[in-house]
């Protein structure tokens, strides 16, 4: 079984030890969790430190906001620092509504209590328990319950920095001022703090990860309408990546790319390390998608430190939101269509899905009857 724990390497080996991170098995980089274990596994373990993760928003921003909350909540549980910069929307609104981690400690204690009480699976009573949960509070990758909010005290334990961009800043010298101000503010927060990349690797440094989140970046609230607007965005992402490479930060940027032209979106994707798009279903009638809430499309995976990037088993991914889990699954073909041929009632739905065409399609009235 793959060991997800962080193994303590000897100090001579030059390993940096930071809690809440894991060393990648593919390229040796330090990874942080996105807050959603299934997304972590699709990305090859998590988001690499020092990279920019782009989340392309779904049209109504329901799931992208949720993913941002998971990312921040994971930061709180791992004890990382948080930085949120948003335009005209109060960042505290986001920080006050983080989901609560499903408590692993209480389940562990109840498991020990019921050790001798297994009524149904009594034959497994004597088998050794499979310790899937590890000792230590902040292990990698947690599950969150979105119906309850995280305790404020937990959130306040972390190092919180937020930036709210209002009119006074943006109407300085044109709209690109907003971007410059954000970059300056971020650099100020990082300089001479625990988040700066250490020059020398000495074993006794207190290093921590700063999670930088830019929700609804490049929405109409952030920028002007001029044709060079995309250049400002692209320049910002370039500088952000440079800042990220030189510090211990993991950036999550969400952009409503459906508002931009294809060429512009291609330029944006070029300048980030990982790009994932969410497409939510609203009133979807396709029975193949019945149990899912949307599709997850991977446009770019990080290729840092290696020639070949991590490739998941399949790129056809769909997600489903449950109260305590956000699940991402590989989509597989539905059961063989010949099942529906014998059912007369399926005629209508099949007509909607597969309009009659001369070539192929499903022939519902089989004349051959053995």
């Amino acid at each position, binding site marked *: 079984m793959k060991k997800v724990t962080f193994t303590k390497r000897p100090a001579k080996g030059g390993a940096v030890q930071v809690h809440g991170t894991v060393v990648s098995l593919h390229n040796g980089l330090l990874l942080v969790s996105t807050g959603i274990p299934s997304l972590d596994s699709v990305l090859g373990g998590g988001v690499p430190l020092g990279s920019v993760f782009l989340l392309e928003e779904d049209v109504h921003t329901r799931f992208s906001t949720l993913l941002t909350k998971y990312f921040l909540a994971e930061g709180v549980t791992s004890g990382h620092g948080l930085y949120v910069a948003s335009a005209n929307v109060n960042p505290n609104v986001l920080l006050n509504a983080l989901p609560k981690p499903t408590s692993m400690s209480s389940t562990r204690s*109840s498991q020990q209590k019921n050790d001798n009480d297994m009524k149904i699976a009594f034959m497994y009573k004597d088998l050794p328990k499979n310790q899937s949960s590890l000792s230590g509070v902040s292990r990698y990758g947690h599950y969150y319950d979105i119906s309850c909010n995280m305790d404020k005290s937990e959130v306040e334990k972390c190092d919180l920095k937020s930036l709210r961009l209002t009119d006074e800043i943006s109407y300085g010298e044109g709209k690109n001022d907003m971007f410059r101000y954000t970059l300056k503010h971020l650099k100020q927060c990082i300089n001479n703090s625990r988040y700066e990349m250490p020059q020398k690797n000495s074993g006794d440094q207190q290093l921590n990860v700063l999670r930088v989140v830019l929700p609804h970046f490049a929405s109409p*609230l952030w920028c002007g309408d001029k044709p060079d607007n995309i250049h400002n965005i692209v320049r910002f992402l370039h500088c952000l990546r440079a800042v990220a490479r030189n510090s211990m930060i993991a950036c999550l940027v969400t952009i409503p790319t459906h508002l931009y032209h294809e060429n512009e979106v291609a330029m944006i994707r070029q300048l980030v390390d990982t790009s994932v798009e969410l497409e939510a279903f609203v009133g979807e009638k396709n029975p193949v998608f019945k149990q899912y809430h949307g599709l997850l499309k991977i446009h770019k995976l990080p290729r840092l430190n290696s020639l070949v990037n991590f490739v998941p088993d399949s790129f056809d991914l769909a997600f489903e939101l449950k*109260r305590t889990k956000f699940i991402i699954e590989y989509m597989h073909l539905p059961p063989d269509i010949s099942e529906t041929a014998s059912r007369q009632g399926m005629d209508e739905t099949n007509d909607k899905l597969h*309009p009659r065409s001369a070539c192929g399609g499903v022939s519902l009235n089989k004349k051959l009857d053995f």
Partner: protein
Amino acid sequence: MLEKLLSGEETSRLVLICDDQFTNGSTLLRAFARSLIKRGCQLHLFCFEQHPTNFIKHLNLHNDSNVHVHDFYSDPIGWDDGDGCLLGSRLFDINSKINQEQAGGSNTAVVIDSLSMTLQTCESTSVCQQLHKLSHNQRVIQTVMLHHTHLHVDDVTKRLSHISDSVLKLNLTSSLPKITFSKKSIHDGTICVTVHRKLNGKVFLSEEKVEILSDSSVEACPWQQDPLSAQTGGISLNEEPDVTSEANLTFNLNLSVREKKERSKLVMPYIKASEEEKVEIHRSTGGGGKIFYEPDDVDDFDDEDPDEDLEF
């Protein structure tokens, strides 16, 4: 969903009504204005496309003291040295005005007859920013705007939809375009497609057939699109002849009626054996089985929300 939005059951800070050259959205806008006044709001009305008195006449109000009219129709560019000068930010001075007003209380609503003129003179992103600020103003409970999608590029409509909480798109029942360009009244087969985003993020989509009566009250009933007419625009396809491969066979693969009856009478070998078993079982156990189930603590019930009404 439309009626819930109108009555205020569903809170929506920014409502965008989209119409095009074949549908007329101003009657629906009037219906929203009327219901807002009925709920006791101070209404700020921005008229760009029709004279304010014309708009108010159709609202059938007993007293219009609650309506503050901002007339941008009579003299938009200020040729007569009028008040309504259509500089970009004039429309949005309202934000600061509302904050200054003390008598208004917290029940102010804004109705904008059409955004087209403002969008033509200002950049769409700055209009979006101002509208966003207006909708988030603590005192304004709702802002309703009319947008003509055929007068602007798609990008503008997309951006406005992005910042709005509810988008109501008016379509005609049949997908074949009408040739006449007259402003048809909404009585005639208009469908409203509502996409409403609740505050907790959940999105609802509904299609309803809308009828607006002369006193600006709305009747909406859910509408299911006829699948055949949707695909083909009302023209029915010819049924394709079923191609069967048995056309060239020399023997008959079908069963006659008599043969089918005989087949159904045939008893399968397993049926006999199971019937014998059934008789034995009935004899041995008196009352059948009972299952006692006690869920362990680690049993996970289904976490999904079947009614989609839980607030996450």
